[in-house]
């Protein structure tokens, strides 16, 4: 019995030693550079594609946690990640907070673009319903409540619009999609700008909230007479019908990747130097009005210069070769003019 016990003890000790040894070995095996990032969920699909391709190419390992833009900004502020990602650019206050804590400026690099479409469930009206900024704001403010409203009829000649109340759907979770959508409403409606404002979550005057794109799509699909906003990528993948939106020039445009890129080119002409810009309601006859960038947040003066060098290389790749993967994954690629501005920005990252 005692011998058995000592044998057990011995085997236990050996197992423990092996375990410890494997831990140490594991530590030393990671000689490869590892870059940690956290933030937005919207660009997660293309980021993971990029990280995968790039790590095979350059031997750099990425660890990206899609915990949401809020979390990403927080982690950048605390300095716990090498880069952050956000669907909304940082405010002056947030930039100052990072400067105070980490002693570095933050560079915003737009990576890809997304668009928001207005999806609806109104079998009587069929496809290609037209919506103007006025009507959209009216619906979301609760001023237009029925599909047979004269304002909707005026821009949809020849369509049969039933006497049916409009069920408004919006995102219940905080999201970059909501940020883009409300940014647009602020630009096109004074009432909205004064009473509601923009943000990742707002105090909606009317409507039902659904969690995530799938939640809003579920609300729309299930309720006849419903109208809501979802990401273009989600609507395309799931075959949701969506409305033609009237842009700044007065044209009714369909949401396409080209329309989004057109909006970005339109906005690029007077892009601010730090690339912090919302491109909703952009000029240009083909521009789709509700779209926006998603950004990577990079420290201008990183403590670890070797990492800074790797990030720089990666970003350059993402702005050039990386862009070709965007469309397949339902993101709009950056127009060349914007990509060039980004490359110039990337050069500002200090490497020594």
């Amino acid at each position, binding site marked *: 019995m005692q011998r058995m016990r000592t044998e057990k003890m011995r085997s236990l000790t050996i197992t423990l030693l092996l375990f410890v040894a494997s831990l140490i070995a594991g530590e030393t095996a990671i000689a490869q550079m590892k870059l940690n990032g956290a933030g937005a969920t919207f660009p997660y699909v293309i980021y993971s594609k990029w990280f995968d391709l790039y790590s095979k190419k350059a031997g750099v390992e990425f660890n990206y946690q899609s915990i949401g833009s809020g*979390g990403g900004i927080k982690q950048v502020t605390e300095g716990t990640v090498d880069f952050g990602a956000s669907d909304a650019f940082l405010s002056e206050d947030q930039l100052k907070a990072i400067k105070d804590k980490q002693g570095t400026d933050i560079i915003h690099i737009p990576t890809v673009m997304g668009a928001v479409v207005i999806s609806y469930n109104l079998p009587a009206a069929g496809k290609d319903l037209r919506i103007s900024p006025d009507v959209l704001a009216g619906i979301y403010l609760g001023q237009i409540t029925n599909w047979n409203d004269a304002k909707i009829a005026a821009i949809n000649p020849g369509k049969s619009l039933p006497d049916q109340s409009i069920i408004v759907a919006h995102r219940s979770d905080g999201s970059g999609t909501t940020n883009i959508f409300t940014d647009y409403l602020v630009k096109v409606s004074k009432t909205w700008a004064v009473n509601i404002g923009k943000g990742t979550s707002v105090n909606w005057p009317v409507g039902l909230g659904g969690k995530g794109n799938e939640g809003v799509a*579920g609300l729309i699909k299930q309720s006849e007479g419903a109208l809501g906003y979802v990401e273009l990528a989600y609507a395309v993948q799931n075959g949701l019908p969506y409305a033609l939106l009237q842009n700044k020039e007065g044209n009714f445009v369909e949401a396409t990747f080209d329309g989004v890129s057109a909006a970005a080119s339109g906005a690029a002409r007077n892009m601010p130097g730090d690339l912090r810009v919302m491109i909703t309601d952009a000029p240009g006859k083909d521009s789709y009005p509700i779209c926006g960038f998603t950004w990577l947040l990079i420290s201008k003066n990183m403590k670890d210069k070797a990492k800074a060098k790797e990030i720089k290389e990666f970003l350059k790749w993402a702005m050039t070769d990386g862009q070709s993967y965007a469309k397949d994954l339902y993101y709009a690629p950056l127009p060349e003019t914007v990509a060039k501005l980004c490359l110039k920005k990337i050069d500002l990252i200090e490497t020594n």
Partner: protein
Amino acid sequence: MAHSASDIAAPVAQGSGGEAKMASPPGVFLRSQKRKSVNLGDTIFQSSTTFFAFLVFVLVFLMAYEMYRGSVPSIEKFGWSFLTREIWDPVQDEYGALVFIFGTVVSSIVALTFALPLSIGVAVFLSELAPGWIEKPMSFLIELLAAIPSIVYGLWGVFVLVPWLRVSVEPVLSRNLKFLPFFTGPSYGFGMLAAGIILAIMVLPIITSISRDVLKAIPTAQREAALALGATRWETTRIVLSDAKSGLLGATLLGLGRAVGETMAVTMVIGNRPEISASLLAPGYTMASVIANEFTEATSDMYVSSLIEIALILFVLTVLLNAAARLIVWSVTKKFKNA
């Protein structure tokens, strides 16, 4: 528990001692005899398990403390009025918890209204009436309900319950019960009623199984005495039920605790609208839902802090409910054990 453990441990220790005696010289045996009184293994075992047990307490206190710390900015800004403010506006950075407290309380009450009669009925059947071959599989099935992940309930709610409510139930309710404020407004399907029904199904297994245990704890002598006095089956059951009153209340409170904290399934069907409405057909919002929905993208400090304060309120509420429930269940089972 400690008692039975030492009962089991004793013969094992003796057995190994006996074997040691046969295999080794007397000196070794004596040493091991001596060691047995302050067995190192036992000491380590006891102190480590004690440590783990206390760790749980520490964990709970740490959680409460961390939540308090996180909500300090919001507590300082809004004070007690946070509990009574109806506004929730992330753009203006103005927050209040009232609509969410209302949503949580109302959806839970609706849930209990449905679940309570059903659960008690099932529990009475299982403990008083059902023959053994029905009772076992049925108890198993009911407890199985508790094992279904809440997201599955949520999906079922979105795809089955909500359309059914919108098309078949809510129009009928609003047509026939128009005079009640609870059934007015358009039928969305999504709303307080849907949330209440989903929650009812989710709390059903908890209330049922605890109620069954409480009823079973009532001595058979009570029933025999009642029957001997000529009481019918129904009358006997009534006596048993009245004996078990406080235990059943405890079971209900435990179910309520579950309903209050439930997040995913409720978020999917409640409509997520921060608004107080008397109508059950109207959408609402609960404390757990707003945290799950908005925490990831909450960027301003006050926003995060307010969400954490809501978590703190929810935490306090569930702790209080569970403590009350445990105390009641405990007191009733103790009463009958002593009797």
